[in-house]
């Protein structure tokens, strides 16, 4: 079954969207018209310039409303979430005690030159985020927060030395694709070191999605608003499943 939807202004299927952007031109009525034509060229109809003004010499800012003729079939879209089925801290501790029988060793870091530890701290620090305790508080985790600006090589060396079960790589800065480059480098190095299969590899950051993580070959990706218990649950369940399969594979 398909369900086609369009943006909703005040009437079903009116396709109304708002747009705003800057053009590198001095403001004039012709600049308003240029903005309108540009949006029409994008395929929008009923384009109206709500506001156009000068913001600096040689630059103008516009707010427009327009309709899109496009629609999408929401039934055909799958965006798997790694956040589903999260347990509470106590549940995770009980689950790990029963299914794994030892502490899970996990390290997190802001990799590359990224210095923004807000995300990784929210997940790992005892204090946690939004009243949800961080992994350091769990009985079932042994946690290493390596902090900011950690080279990929250093993280992999650490994973090897400490025989980690899980790695959390965080990237906040996304300028010029630096996040994707760093995530990719980490995945490739783990692969080259033969560690990839036994480590639950997770990435996080405000622009990270689980879909992106999948494309990068990670086990999961967590974006903005993620709670520590969601990450803890994912790691615990994934690791338990992996250990179970490894056991079965042994003769």
């Amino acid at each position, binding site marked *: 079954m398909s369900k086609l939807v369009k943006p909703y202004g005040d009437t079903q299927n009116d396709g109304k969207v708002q747009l*705003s*952007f*800057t053009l590198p031109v001095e403001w004039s009525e012709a600049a308003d018209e240029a903005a309108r034509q540009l949006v029409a060229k994008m395929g929008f109809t009923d384009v109206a310039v709500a506001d156009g003004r000068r*913001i*600096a*010499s*040689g*630059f103008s*800012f516009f707010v427009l409303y327009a309709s899109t003729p496009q629609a999408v079939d929401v039934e055909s879209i799958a965006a798997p979430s790694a956040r589903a089925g999260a347990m509470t801290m106590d549940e995770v501790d009980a689950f790990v005690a029963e299914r794994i029988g030892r502490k899970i060793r996990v390290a997190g870091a802001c990799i*590359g*030159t*990224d*210095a923004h*530890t*807000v995300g990784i*701290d929210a997940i790992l*620090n005892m*204090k946690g985020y939004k009243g949800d305790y961080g992994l350091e508080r769990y009985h079932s985790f042994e946690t290493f927060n390596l*902090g*900011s*600006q950690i080279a990929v090589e250093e993280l992999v060396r650490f994973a090897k030395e400490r025989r980690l079960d899980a790695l959390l790589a965080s990237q906040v*800065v*996304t*300028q*010029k694709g*630096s996040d994707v480059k760093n995530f990719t480098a980490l995945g490739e190095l783990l692969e080259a070191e033969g560690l990839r299969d036994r480590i639950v590899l997770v990435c996080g950051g*405000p622009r990270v999605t689980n879909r992106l993580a999948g494309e990068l070959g990670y086990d999961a990706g967590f974006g*903005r*608003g993620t709670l520590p218990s969601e990450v803890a649950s994912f790691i615990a369940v994934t690791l338990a499943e992996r250990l179970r399969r490894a056991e079965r594979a042994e003769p």
Partner: protein
Amino acid sequence: MELRIDRACVARCRELAAAIADPIETFIATHSTVAVERAVLRLLGVDGVAADEVPLANAVLDSIAPAAPVDGVATAFGKALAETGLEPTELARRIATGERALAEFDGTPVAAARGALRPYVDEALRAIGARRQERSALLDRLGQLPPPLLYVIVASGNIYEDRTAAVAAAEAGAQVIAVIRSTGQSLLDFVPYGPTTEGFGGTYATQANFAIMRSALDEAGEKLGRYVMLTNYASGLCMPEIAVMAAFERLDMLLNDSMYGVLFRDINMKRTFVDQHFSRMLNAFSGIVINTGEDNYLTTADAVEQAPAVLASQFINEEFAHRAGLPDAQIGLGDAYEINPDLEDSFLYQVAQAQLAREIFPNAPLKYMPPTKHMTGDIFKGHLIDAMFNLTSVMTHQTIHLCGMPTEAIHTPFLGDRALALENARYVMNAARHFGDEVVLRPGGAIERRAHAVLADCEGLLERVAAMGLMKAIESGLFADVARAPEGGRGFEGVFARGADYYNPFEQALSTSVRTAPNEKVTA
């Protein structure tokens, strides 16, 4: 608007800050670092890079490693100047290529070295003094819009794109432009060279980039009829060298905190304490306003809980700044609007904290940082939170106001984002310009109670720090929940104890001139 704070408690906090700084000052006086010595070389005129892009200042220092330069580099360099008759940069170049070595001139008398250094020392102080006077003259002639001074960041990675963005922002009302640095730069133990067009999350701080931006802003300032200030970052492993470059290129402000690098960049604390002192001596002499980094306590931990730590850090930063010769008018103590917006009465807490700082540090150009932690990507709500921040800033008379961006947490600001942010600040601040002067805070009310509690807790925290000693306190994680070891972290290998014959020609000159310099008002 007044909080009726406990003045005796404020006085005790200052005494405690002094007690905390005392042992650190003793440490500073008996140590130097490779960054301080490189700053000395730069002040003497050593500029440029050797092969492989190694700055000449680094090459000279490296040429005397691995032995620690316990007597400082100046005497050895001065001996070589005296014997060779070369200019500092040319001498450094020859040392870098291995054609010359400082060890060759060991036998030269110290007096000859000092005599050879003298003209270069005088020239550096003259040049920096001239830049300072230039600033004063421009501020007199062009002036500034009234504070809060609207401050925005440019950060494209390309200095030429930054220049376009900076001029556009100045036209849209920005009074201070900061070129944020490439994220890795604080950990580089050298300063990159020349104009740069690539960086991550920011643009490299180089002397050439400083000059490019300075001249663009001077030009914009003449057109707009008001002086536009320029800011960069004297933090990380090259604090003193950045301070030298900023002095030569007439930057007006520098981010410069006594503990930030230790806590948030894992830079060795001893390195930081020594480096911040010499860089602040330079800032004092060059008339540069420092901006301290207390906002970081709030972004990395709960903002309500961390309020006493912010105030404690402000007291400590003030004390260290005074000891480096900085007058109040050059100490831009930091704070930030980071309390969870969903918390009932969050605005009251923000006003309490901002007003508290204003009353305790009445002559400091306070630097107020915008909400970042609770910005989600919802630009509409973000714009609204920024408006509340703008209102708090104008009503509590903050001096330096970093404009919040609606697109915070999405991308480094677009040109249009900056224009919207500046428009927001200009509207709110104009509409509420004298609001703070009209309002009387209810005695014993929620705002006053909160301020009193923060001050009392700050005193308690300072007492604990004073009892333990600052290094031990940092080691125990008393600040921002971050624990750092006195000999851990980056850059420790570049710290050394001064020998009996240690000599830094600028230290003496700066400490005397700083004390006698007129305490001019830097901001409008």
